[in-house]
């Protein structure tokens, strides 16, 4: 609080604060411009972890629908199903 009160009344400190904020902003922007990993990286990771062939199938419309998903887990595979009705999703199957 005392620091803030000082800065409010001190022109050189205000200048330094503005400079520090500008530098921070420029650094964030510069790092954000760096590329991300190639799109295929996830597939390589998935093949070594959750399995490459996660499957999700959905049928239906906005009013009602059914989704069936097959997922790999650390202990094997799981099959889950859910029913959606008027935007609300209700689990109906878990194996």
């Amino acid at each position: 609080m005392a620091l803030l009160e000082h800065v409010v009344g001190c022109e050189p400190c205000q200048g330094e604060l503005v400079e520090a904020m500008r530098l921070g902003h420029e650094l964030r922007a510069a790092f954000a411009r760096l590329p991300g990993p190639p799109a295929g990286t996830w597939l390589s990771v998935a093949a070594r972890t959750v399995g490459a062939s996660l499957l999700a199938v959905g049928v239906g419309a906005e009013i009602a629908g059914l989704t069936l998903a097959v997922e790999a887990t650390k202990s094997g595979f799981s099959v889950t199903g859910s029913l959606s009705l008027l935007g609300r999703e209700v689990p109906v199957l878990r194996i």
Partner: protein
Amino acid sequence: MADDRELVGQVARGNGRAFRALYERYADRVFRYALTLLRNRHLAEEVVQETMVAVWNGADKFEGRSQVSTWIFGIARHHAYRIGRGEVKGERVPDEEGESPDPALMVEQEVRVQRAVAGLPPDQREVVFLAFYAGLPYEEIARVQGVPEGTVKSRMFHAKKRLAEELRP
């Protein structure tokens, strides 16, 4: 939306969807971190893969004593140095100097900032990335780098000084 700790908890129980969500949240940051350390896209991609596989395998051992981001960047750092030393696949991809986005897409000042950051000593470059882009506090950066907090502050002090000098309008 689940927070990082919740996602790690779900990953520990083998939830593939949670793992995908964690990947989406961290892949870019880990890649850019590895790029900052190694300055090589191929090696950076390898770091992302090894890091995320380690997260999947080690999620049940995460005790929550640090932030999830600190834990993940710590893993990434370990793999970056291992891969950088050529311990993976027994080969070393040559350095790619000037590993940065296409300058044509960047405004002049951003090119200057990129070059100034690239010119910093590696330890300082890493601190600048972790503080300004990853948003880690000094205490967490010290954990990632395995050094006292005072060392992080010193590295940041020197990095800021040098950057301010180079980027002075």
